[in-house]
C-alpha cells in the first residue's frame, strides 16, 4: 500500500511581500509550510528559515573525489605499465594537473546537481498541488503558500490560520484515497 500524501491547503497571494510575511508567521506558528513563486524572491530564505548546506557540501565532496580519483587514475597505468620516455618521470605531476582539474570540475558538478535534484525529490512529474485550480499561475505572476496537513493536523484550525494571513483564495487539494 503506497503511503498516502498529506492534504494541502493552498493560499494565493497577488504579491510577494504578504506571501513572505504569511510564510514566516505560519512557520513560526508551527505549521509545515512551503511557498511557491514564479521566480526566486528576495527574502524567501529567511521566511522559510532555510539553512540547508547539503548542496554546496556535495559540490565540495564531489570535487575532492574527482580530483584525487583523477590524479590516481593517471598515476596507476604509469606505475603498472611503465614506459621510459627519455628518462622522464613516471609520475609527471605538472602534466597530470590538467586532467585532475577537469575531473574535479566534472565530478563536483555532477554530484552537486544530482544532490540538488535528490534533495528536492525531483523529477516527480505529478504532485497534488498541481490539482489546485489556480496553481498554474505559480509559474506566471502569482505567489502561493501551502500548509501540509500532516497527520493529526486540524484542518479547520489550519484554514483559519491561513485565512488570518489574508490570501485572495484558499483551496484544499490532495489527501484523498487514490481510486
Amino acid at each position, binding site marked *: 500500500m503506497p503511503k498516502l500524501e498529506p492534504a494541502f491547503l493552498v493560499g494565493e497571494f497577488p504579491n510577494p511581500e504578504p506571501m513572505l510575511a504569511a510564510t514566516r508567521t505560519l512557520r513560526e506558528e508551527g505549521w509545515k509550510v512551503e511557498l511557491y513563486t514564479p521566480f526566486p524572491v*528576495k527574502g524567501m530564505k529567511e521566511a522559510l528559515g532555510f539553512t540547508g548546506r547539503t548542496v554546496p557540501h556535495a559540490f565540495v565532496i564531489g570535487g575532492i573525489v574527482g580530483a584525487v580519483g583523477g590524479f590516481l587514475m593517471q598515476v596507476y597505468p604509469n606505475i603498472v605499465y611503465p614506459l621510459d620516455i627519455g628518462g622522464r618521470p613516471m609520475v609527471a605531476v605538472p602534466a597530470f594537473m590538467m586532467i585532475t582539474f577537469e575531473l574535479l570540475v566534472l565530478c563536483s558538478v555532477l554530484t552537486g546537481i544530482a544532490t540538488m535534484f535528490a534533495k528536492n525529490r525531483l523529477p516527480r512529474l505529478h504532485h497534488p498541488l498541481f490539482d489546485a485550480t489556480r496553481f498554474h499561475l505559480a509559474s506566471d505572476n502569482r505567489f502561493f503558500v501551502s500548509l501540509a496537513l500532516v497527520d493529526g493536523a486540524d484542518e479547520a484550525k489550519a484554514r483559519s490560520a491561513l485565512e488570518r494571513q489574508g490570501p485572495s483564495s484558499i483551496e484544499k487539494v490532495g489527501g484523498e484515497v487514490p481510486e
Partner: protein
Amino acid sequence: MSDRTRDSNYHRITGEVVSIPPKFPAPITWAILFGFSMIGVGLLILSVIMVFTRGVEIWGNNIPVAWGFPIANYIWWIAIGHAGTLISAMLLMMNENWRNTTNRFAEAMTLFAVTCGGLYPIVHLGRPWFFYWMAPYFSTMTVWPQFRSPLTWDFFAVLTYLTVSLIFWYIGLVPDLAAARDRATKRRWQVFFGLFALGWRGSGTHWLRWRQAYVITAAIAVPLVVSVHSEISMLFAAGPIPGWTSTIFPPYFVLGAAFSGFAVVTMLAVVVRSLLRLKDLVTERHLDMLGRLTLACGLMTAFGYVAETYTSLYAGSYEAQTVMDRFTGPYWWSFWGAVVFNFVPIQLLWWRKIRVAPVFTFLIGLSVAVGMWMERYMLLVTSLYRDWLESSVNAFQGTFWDWALFIGFIGLFCAGFLLFVRFLPVIAQFEVKEQVAEEGHA
C-alpha cells in the same frame, strides 16, 4: 511602480517568452533558414561518409601539416562556445542583470558549438572507430591512454566542458519549461514541456537549493573555460615548434576565444530579436553591452598579437623566421586577413550608434568570426608546413572536402540553434521577472 503594473509585467514577460514555441511568430522565415541549414547537414553527412570510406587523404592534410582544417576548426568552434559560458556564468557571478535575456541562447550556442568542435577530432582520427581508446577503462588487454601525452587532455577537457555546459543550460531551463508547461494548451506541448520540466513547481525550498547549485556551477564554469582553452593552447605550446612554443599562448587563446564568441553571440542576438520579435526584451542596451565586450576582448587579443610578434622577434632565430614568414610568406593572406578582419571593423564599436545598430553589429560579428578562423588557420599552417628539414617542407591547401565538412558543421550548428529557438524558451523569463521585482524595470 505600483503592484498592478509589476504584476502585469510578469504576466507579459511569461506570455512573450513561453508562447513562442506554440505560436511561432515567423514560421516561414524559420522554415527557409532551417531548410538551408539542413542542406548543410546533408553536406556534413556526405563529407563524413566520404572521409570514413576513403580516409583522410581526401583532405589537404599532409606531413608535416597533419592537423590541417580539422584541428583549426576544432579550436574555432570550441572558442566560440566559450563566450556562452562566460556571458552566463561570469556575469551571473558579477550580478550583471543584463545577462538575463542573453544567457539562454548564448548557452545554447555553447552547446552546439562544442558539439561541432568535439566531433572534429574524432572525424580527424585516421581510424575513428577506435575513438573510445581515448577513454580510460579496464580493457582485457590492460591498455591505457598515455597520460603523459598532452593529447589525452583534449578528451577530458571537451568531455567535461560539454557535460557541464549541458547541465548548466538545462538546470537554468527547468523553471522556464515548467512555465511553458503551465501555459501550454495543446496536449503534445503539455507532454513535451511536462516531461522536461521534471515536475518543477516553484517551491521556495527548491528554488533555494536550485540557486545554490546554479551559482556554484557558474563559479566552477568560469575557471573551466579558462582551463579548457588553455589546454587547447598548450597542445600547441607544449611542442617544440617555432611560432607555437610560447608562454603567451594560454591567455592569448582564452581572450581570442572570448572575442570570437562574443562576436557570434552578437550575431545570434540580432537574429533572435528580429526573428522572434523580442525587441523589448533583447534591447539596444544588450547590443550595446555585447559591442563593448567584443571591443574590449578584441583589443586584448590585439595586444596578444603585438606581444607574440615582439617576443618572437626578440627571440630571433627560428621564431623570428616563422614570424617573418607569416608576414610575407605564402600564407601572408591568413595573417593579414586575421589582422584586418579582427581589428579594423571593431574600431567602429567605439561609437554607441554603431553598437546599437543591428546590421552593423551583425556584420562586425561576422568579420570577427572570419578573422578568428584565419588566425587559427595561420597559427596552424604557418608553423607546421616548414619543418626543420628541407625535405619535410610541404605546402598545405584545403580541398573541396575540407570546405564541405566545415560548411556542413556550420549547417549542423545553425540547424541545432534553430531547433532550440523553435521549441524551447529562448529567454530566461523567470530571471527577467526577478530583475523586474528587484529593479522595477526589465
